[in-house]
C-alpha cells in the first residue's frame, strides 16, 4: 500500500541533503587539507573574533577554529561511519539468523537485546571504555558494541515478516540453500527500512562520540574532536563565546542534517 506523496522528492530530503552534503564535504576535505595548520599557535592572534581571515575566530592559543572544526568533523565522521558499519553488519548477521531460525538462540539474543536497549547507551559505552581503556579504536569498538542491539531488533522483525512470504516458500521449494535465501532473497528487501535506522544510528554514534570526548574519555589528543574542543572552550565563554559555539553548532548542524534526511527517506518509502 503506498501512501499519497510517497516516492516523491520532499523538502526534508532537500534540506537534509544540503546540510549533510556540506558537512561531509568539509569533513572529508579536513582529512587532507585545512586552511590553516591546526596546531600552529600565534600569540598575537589570541581570541580573535570571527572575521574574514578566521571565519570562526581563533582560540586561546591563536589557532584557527575553523580549521580545527574541520579536523574534528573528519574524526567524528570517520568514527561515526566505522561505528555504524560495525554495529550494522553485526546487527544484520544476528538479526537475520535469529529472525529466520528462531529457537533458543533467538530467545537468548532477544533477552540480551532488550536489556541493553533499555539502558542509556552512553552509560554502557562508558563502562566498556573503562574496561578497554580510551583512545580512538576503543571508542569505535565500545560504541559499535553498544549500538548492535538497535539493529538486531529491526532486522529480526523484518526477517520474521518475510520468512513466511510466498516467494521465500517458493525459493525453498526450488532448493535454494539457506544462506542464499537469507542474504540474496530476504536481505535486499529490508534495506528501505534498514536505511532509516542506519541514519538514526549514525546520529546516535556522533552524539555519543562527542559526548564521550567532551567528558574526556573518548578520543584523546592529538586526535582532534568536537567534544574535546567544547570542553576546552567552556572556560572562555565570557570573552570568546565563538570558541564554544563553533564546534557545538557544527555538531547540531550534522545531527539535524541527518535527522532531516532520514525523515525525508521515511516519508518517501
Amino acid at each position, binding site marked *: 500500500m503506498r501512501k499519497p506523496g510517497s516516492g516523491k522528492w520532499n523538502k526534508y530530503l532537500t534540506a537534509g541533503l544540503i546540510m549533510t552534503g556540506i558537512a561531509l564535504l568539509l569533513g572529508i576535505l579536513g582529512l587532507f587539507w585545512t586552511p590553516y595548520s591546526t596546531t600552529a599557535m600565534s600569540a598575537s592572534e589570541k581570541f580573535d573574533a570571527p572575521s574574514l581571515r578566521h571565519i570562526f575566530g581563533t582560540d586561546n592559543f591563536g589557532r584557527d577554529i575553523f580549521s580545527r572544526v574541520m579536523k574534528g568533523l573528519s574524526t567524528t565522521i570517520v568514527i561515526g561511519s566505522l561505528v555504524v558499519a560495525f554495529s550494522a553488519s553485526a546487527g544484520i548477521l544476528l538479526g537475520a539468523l535469529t529472525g529466520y531460525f528462531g529457537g533458543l538462540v533467538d530467545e537468548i539474543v532477544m533477552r540480551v537485546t532488550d536489556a541493553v536497549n533499555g539502558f542509556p547507551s552512553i552509560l554502557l559505552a562508558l563502562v566498556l571504555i573503562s574496561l578497554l581503556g580510551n583512545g580512538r579504536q576503543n571508542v569505535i569498538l565500545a560504541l559499535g558494541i553498544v549500538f548492535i542491539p538497535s539493529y538486531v531488533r529491526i532486522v529480526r522483525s523484518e526477517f520474521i515478516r518475510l520468512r513466511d512470504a510466498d516467494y521465500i516458500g517458493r525459493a525453498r521449494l526450488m532448493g535454494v540453500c539457506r544462506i542464499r535465501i537469507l542474504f540474496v532473497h530476504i536481505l535486499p528487501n529490508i534495506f528501505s527500512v534498514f536505511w532509516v535506522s542506519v541514519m538514526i544510528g549514525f546520529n546516535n554514534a556522533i552524539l555519543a562520540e562527542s559526548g564521550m570526548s567532551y567528558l574526556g574519555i573518548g578520543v584523546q589528543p592529538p586526535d582532534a574532536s568536537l567534544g574535546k574542543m567544547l570542553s576546552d572552550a567552556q572556560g572562555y565563554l565570557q570573552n570568546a563565546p565563538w570558541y564554544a559555539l563553533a564546534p557545538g553548532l557544527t555538531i547540531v548542524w550534522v*545531527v539535524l542534517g541527518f535527522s532531516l534526511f532520514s525523515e525525508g527517506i521515511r516519508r518517501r518509502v
Partner: protein
Amino acid sequence: MNFFIKKFITLIMTLFLVSVGAFLAFQIIPGDVVTSILGTEATPEREEQLREELGLNDPPVVRYFSWAGGVLRGDLGRSYQYSKNMNEMMPVAELIGDKLPVTLWLAGLAMVLIVMVSIPLGVLWAKSGNRFLDAALGVVTQATMAVPSFFLGILVTFLFGVVLKWFAPGSYVSYRQDFGGFLGYLVFPALSIALPKIAMTARFLRNSMLTEMKADYVRTAYSKGCSRQRVMYGHVLRNAMMPVVTFLGMIIAEIVAGSIVVEQVFGLPGIGRLLISSINNRDFPVVEILILYITFVVIFVYFLVDILYRVIDPRISER
C-alpha cells in the same frame, strides 16, 4: 497478581546477572590495583598486606559472594581513590550518600519541568489548527532534539549566565549550606536536561492525540452532545496519555544518563561526576556500585511503568 510476581522475579534475576557481569568485568582487566594505590615504590610486604586486606588473594567466586553479601547488608566496599583519613579508605556508601541527593534533585527537577511543560504544549499543539504554529513548533522541536545535552548546557550557561546574568556559572552551593540557593542553581542544569525531552514528549503526545482524535469513540462522544473541551480532556487526552506514560518512563532512564554529562558541564558534585572520575582513576569498587545502582533505577522504573500501565489501561491485564 501472578504478573507482578513474574515481573519481580525478572527484576531480581536481571540485577543478579548485572552484578555478576559488573564484578567479573572488572576482574579481568589488566592493571594491578595494589600498585595503583601504593605507587610503584612500596615494599613487597606492604603490597602483600594490602592484597590480603582487600581480599584479593581469595578465588573470584568467594570474592563475588563476599562483595555481593556486603552490598546486601549495606556495606558497599571501599573506594581506592578517596580516603577518609590517613589510614582509612573512604567507604563507597558514604561517598555515594553524599553525592546522591544532588543527582536525585537534579533528575527530579528535570522530570517536573518535562511533565509541566510538555503535556500542556502537546495538547495545545494537537488542538490548534493553526498552520503557522504547527510548522513553527515542528521546526523548534526538531532543532531542540538535535542539540546534544552538553552543548545545550553550555548554551544555557552562556545565555542565562553570561548574557542575562541570572546565575553565576560555577557558583554551586551545597544543599547542606543553602538549600534555596542549591535549588536555584540546579534549575539551569535541569533545564538543559529537560529541553530536548520536552520537545520529544510534546511531539509524541501531539501525534498520539492526533491518532486518537480519529477514533470512533470521538465521533460518538461528539454525537451524544459532548462539548469539545470534554471530548478533548475527558476522552482523547486520557487515551492519548497511555503511550506517553511508557515514554516518560523511558525518559527517566535517559535523564539518569543525561545527568552524567550535564553534571560535568555545570560542575555539580553528583553521581555522574563521581562515575567519570572513578572511571578515569580506575576506582573500580565505586564504578561497580554505581553501575549496579543505575541499573537498579532503570529496571525499577520500567517495573513501575509496567504496573502503572496496567492501572491506567485495564484492558491489558485481561490478556
